[in-house]
């Protein structure tokens, strides 16, 4: 996917004026927040669990090389195969290679953000394969030819009416004509369409929420069961996973699973939590003949031990998106690449470059709510600031902001000058306000006054008045 993060301001403006999108966002936002709040209220030890989860991730990352090697060893011992990919191109090549050797034609795909990151669908389709997304949300955006707008609810930007219209346009054929007014009706239709695809698929691709080193298992959580069908019905199962997903034991994964579901959808546990360990064994009734895990780095090993190390603790729950006032206002597409919201504002510049991604870390009030709700206590505002620091050091900050800041800092370092300028500015503004106490508009303040009045200063500075009071009592 070609990023459009550089055009964030423009994307955001468009999103703010898109009435249908605003309707969809308003509905989704409150739901996620309330559900999470309810789930956490019901678990008094949530903070302790959060600490434990963080410790597990910190330990796993500190020993990532060990646990990844152990994971590979166990996958191999179970009859599966691990493919290491440093870049998205290498990851796609590995997937294409497996599909080709399997003589595949159709691929059933479960939801995978790493799949979006490496653009595996584009690679597969370019090579002539038919790829069908089997997660309902992913299926909707696939037929709408759009990227996901949320990491756990990819079609959250779509209203029910839009989805019904999409389905009617694509699925309408004799024998499959029914009203599509309620959610169950929409889901039922998708289920009928997808059922045939599961049975016809040669290869199933799923993501992974965790990789378990001690057993060589990959774990996914879904609420639709589509991941299980994608993994078990086709002959070949490919798991796409990024390297930071590795944890030592099943026990560790269970701690993180409890945090994940509550933080994401407010569930105690998702409807399906599935552990895949190798291909079908001799006495298994079902399962794939081949089991492959493609381990994707894509810059993550560079993050280890650096300023963005803690970002690797992210378990992709989406809580930071759901609680972000900027995400809530503009939705995910405005961010212009795969990962939106606060976590996306940290990851995108690292993966597509700071030059392309630089608006994202700036599009934040640093209100800190993301960090407050993050189950992994990732200091997201601190990392947004770090991006801003690098942007400044590399001279990517727009000149106007740079100059304004430099002028302010110059004055503020010289108290006598600062007092003089302050006195003058306050007097001028006070005079211009004509006693009305505020401005409806003001030269150079258009950004502020477009939607709000600018209160006028009271008149005089505190420092001057204080001096006078001190001397004249």
């Amino acid at each position: 996917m070609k990023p459009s993060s550089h055009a964030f301001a423009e994307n955001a403006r468009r999103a703010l004026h898109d009435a249908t999108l605003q309707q969809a966002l308003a509905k989704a936002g409150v739901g996620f927040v309330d559900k999470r709040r309810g789930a956490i209220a019901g678990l008094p030890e949530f903070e302790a669990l959060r600490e434990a989860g963080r410790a597990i991730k910190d330990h796993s990352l500190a020993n990532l090389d060990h646990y990844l090697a152990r994971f590979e060893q166990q996958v191999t011992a179970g009859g599966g195969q691990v493919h290491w990919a440093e870049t998205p191109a290498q990851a796609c090549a590995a997937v294409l290679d497996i599909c080709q050797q399997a003589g595949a034609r159709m691929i059933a795909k479960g939801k995978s953000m790493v799949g979006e990151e490496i653009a595996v669908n584009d690679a597969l389709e370019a090579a002539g394969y038919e790829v069908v997304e089997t997660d309902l949300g992913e299926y909707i955006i696939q037929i709408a030819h759009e990227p996901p707008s949320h990491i756990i609810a990819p079609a959250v930007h779509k209203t029910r009416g839009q989805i019904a219209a999409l389905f009617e346009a694509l699925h309408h054929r004799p024998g499959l004509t029914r009203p599509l007014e309620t959610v169950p009706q929409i889901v039922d239709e998708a289920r009928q369409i997808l059922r045939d695809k599961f049975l016809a698929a040669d290869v199933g691709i799923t993501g992974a929420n965790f990789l378990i080193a001690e057993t060589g298992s990959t774990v996914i959580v879904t609420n639709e069961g589509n991941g299980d069908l994608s993994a078990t019905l086709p002959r070949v199962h490919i798991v796409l996973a990024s390297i930071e997903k590795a944890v030592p034991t099943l026990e560790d994964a269970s701690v993180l699973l409890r945090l994940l579901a509550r933080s994401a959808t407010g569930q105690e546990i998702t409807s399906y939590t599935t552990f895949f360990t190798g291909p079908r064994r001799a006495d298994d009734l079902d399962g794939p003949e081949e089991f492959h895990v493609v381990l994707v780095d894509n810059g993550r090993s560079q993050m280890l031990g650096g300023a963005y190390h803690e970002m690797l603790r992210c378990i992709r729950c989406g809580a930071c998106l759901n609680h972000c006032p900027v995400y809530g206002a503009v939705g995910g597409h405005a961010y212009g690449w795969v990962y939106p919201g606060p976590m996306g504002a940290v990851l995108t510049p690292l993966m597509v470059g700071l030059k392309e991604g630089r608006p994202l870390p700036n599009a934040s009030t640093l209100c800190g709510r993301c960090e407050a709700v993050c189950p992994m206590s990732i200091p997201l505002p601190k990392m947004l600031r770090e991006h801003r620091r690098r942007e400044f050091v590399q001279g990517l900050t727009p000149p106007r902001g740079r100059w304004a800041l430099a002028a302010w800092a110059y004055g503020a370092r010289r108290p006598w000058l600062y007092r003089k300028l302050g006195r003058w500015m306050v007097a001028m503004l006070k005079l211009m306000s004509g006693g009305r106490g505020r401005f409806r508009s003001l030269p150079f303040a258009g950004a502020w006054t477009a939607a709000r009045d600018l209160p006028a200063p009271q008149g005089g500075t505190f420092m001057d008045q204080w001096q006078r009071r001190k001397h004249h009592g």
Partner: protein
Amino acid sequence: MRIALFVSCLVDLYRPSVGFAAVKLLEGLGAEVVVPEGQTCCGQPAFNSGDLAAARDLARPLIDTLAGFEHVVVPSGSCAGMLVKYYPELFAHEPEWLAKARTLARHSRELSAFLAEHGAVIDARHAGRVAMHDSCSSRRELNVLAEPRRLLNAVAGLEQVDIPEAETCCGFGGTFCVKYPDISARMVSDKAEAVINSGADTLVSGDMGCLLNIAGRLKRMESPVRVYHIAELLAGMTDAPGIGEGER
């Protein structure tokens, strides 16, 4: 007790009455209030814009100016957060300044937290329904939530009301409000509506940034809700025009 007041640039330039309200409240504790002369800006705009060198250049003289005081009080959660939380971060690699920054951080408090902790006796009257807006820095950086409410409870005739979705940012965000004015406008509109829905006739907060932003939007909406810094209300100074109001 000797207290250094760091008034913050917005109070200095925009609303001196907040500084005087703070002085009055602190003197009410029986303290001597000093306003060290060299103070200007804490450097937060530079810090948040990625210019750490400029932020350090502003922080060093302020650290020196405020050194030696047992108590440093700031009528702003966001500037207090800068002193308490970010100065030590800013000097993480300069041991000498780190030690000074940590000392200052230990001695610095946001005004309402300081007053509540020192058992301030509030002698003010304000008949009406008052909503307290917590700045994100007060709420999440300093964890100051109960203190301002405890102080407001002591104001005669005052009824406190809660703002719905109180945890959501008002959309000020320093330079954010001019860098992304459309998004900021949307956020402050939501906030102003929440304030109106709370049924309050007066809004207070401990941060001038939020106050200028929300007051500006309330005025644009022609809302009658009056807006003050919490210090002004606690000091019984709500007879003067509120933020964004003309002279009467």
